[in-house]
């Protein structure tokens, strides 16, 4: 093919015989995109983000309404709880300064515990205003969880809306880019939280409850000790000459317990621990199958990190090996009703725990088995 006889003027429609209108067709969009390209992109992206913000706003309002309706339906309160609930939902937490990170874990733990304890007390007080209402642990924990969901959805909506409005106000396209990038993940999280509401309202086990489910069955028909730590239950058992200590959050309330405090209390009382086995739900990677069971080393426990830090601290100080078994699942599966695939893995994991005990310990040794996760709808 011969490229040498290309007429540039003809190609761009600028030749003598060309139509000036045709020339404009080429030139105008170029000028438009050079000077207003970012604004056009901002306009297109804004449309998509606006739709997501609208959805987030609906989730926020729905979660709050559902919580208020749930409180009114289940407690027969004499007064309207809307004002108090709105105040609770708006609570914020200021994470301690980390310019000098030494000792920050205890500070974070203190702040998070303060929020948790005070919110629980306020929910208890809100319910006990009515003499007919049952202010038992289960109901308080359920309302506290629903409150956390509503509060998280409120915070997600506020943050996304703030980032969007700031970019719009400044007409700044680069400012909207990070928001556009993280929005699919934020929406996944928000949709999971929205769908989690029904699970917690009906006290249906969630995917994260696989750890307590494994240990709960091992605890059946054994003497339980509920005073080891807040919302945490402990049982002693024996298996092929080994002493086993079973630990999980006290179900069927929507609580995760305090395993680090439980270990601390055991050590304080002189309890010898030779090995720790932790069972938890873990985030699967894209491409991995849901409900895949994996074994590994180290403390399998999520959350803000303070529990894991403390467990690792006790284990390293006393040279206690920590082994873990995890059941893989997505963010959505972890906080929404437990699926059949995940539930059916409980027996497989239980077998693996006993196998792990046999392979890694000898007779007369003590094994601590911890079922980590939210134990809603799962007893022991």
């Amino acid at each position: 093919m011969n490229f040498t006889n290309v007429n540039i003027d003809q190609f761009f429609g600028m030749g003598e015989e060309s139509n000036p209108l045709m020339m404009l067709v080429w030139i105008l969009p170029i000028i438009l995109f050079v000077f207003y390209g970012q604004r056009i992109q901002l306009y297109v992206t804004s449309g998509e983000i606006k739709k997501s913000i609208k959805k987030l706003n609906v989730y926020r309002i729905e979660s709050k309404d559902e919580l208020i309706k749930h409180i009114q339906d289940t407690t027969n309160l004499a007064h309207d709880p809307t004002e108090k609930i709105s105040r609770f939902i708006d609570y914020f937490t200021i994470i301690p300064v980390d310019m000098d990170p030494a000792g920050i874990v205890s500070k974070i733990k203190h702040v998070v515990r303060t929020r948790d304890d005070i919110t629980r007390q306020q929910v208890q007080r809100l319910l006990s205003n009515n003499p007919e209402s049952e202010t038992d642990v289960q109901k308080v924990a359920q309302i506290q969880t629903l409150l956390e969901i509503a509060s998280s959805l409120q915070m997600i909506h506020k943050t996304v809306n703030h980032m969007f409005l700031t970019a719009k106000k400044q007409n700044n396209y680069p400012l909207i880019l990070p928001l556009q990038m993280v929005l699919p993940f934020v929406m996944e999280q928000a949709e999971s939280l929205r769908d989690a509401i029904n699970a917690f309202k009906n006290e249906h086990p969630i995917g994260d409850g696989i750890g307590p489910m494994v240990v709960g069955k091992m605890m059946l028909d054994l003497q339980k000790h509920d005073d080891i730590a807040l919302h945490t239950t402990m049982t002693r058992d024996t298996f092929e000459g080994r002493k086993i200590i079973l630990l999980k959050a006290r179900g069927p309330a929507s609580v995760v317990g305090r395993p680090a405090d439980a270990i601390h209390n055991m050590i304080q009382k002189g309890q010898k621990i030779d090995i720790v086995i932790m069972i938890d739900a873990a985030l699967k990677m894209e491409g991995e199958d849901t409900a895949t069971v994996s074994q590994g080393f180290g403390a399998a426990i999520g959350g803000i990190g303070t529990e894991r830090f403390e467990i690792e601290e006790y284990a390293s100080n006393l040279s206690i090996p920590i082994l873990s078994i995890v059941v893989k699942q997505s963010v959505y599966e972890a906080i929404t009703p437990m699926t059949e695939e995940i539930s059916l893995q409980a027996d497989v994991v239980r077998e693996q725990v006993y196998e792990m005990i046999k392979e890694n310990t000898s007779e007369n040794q003590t094994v601590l088995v911890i079922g980590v996760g939210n134990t809603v709808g799962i007893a022991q």
Partner: protein
Amino acid sequence: MIFQINDKKKKQTTTSYTISKCVKCHTTKKQKFKKGDVVFAKTVHVCTSCDNSMIIEHIFSKELE
């Protein structure tokens, strides 16, 4: 329709089930989940095969076809 392209995720309908197991003969019974069902709690029903008590083994949600 053959030419219809739908990128949007279909909203899946799920339903929850409670699986109870007889403590003696291990007969299982599957029924729809109802509020108040708790894993490892005894059910109000007795086993149809041996009249012994039943315990809830699993509670899970399943997508409807």
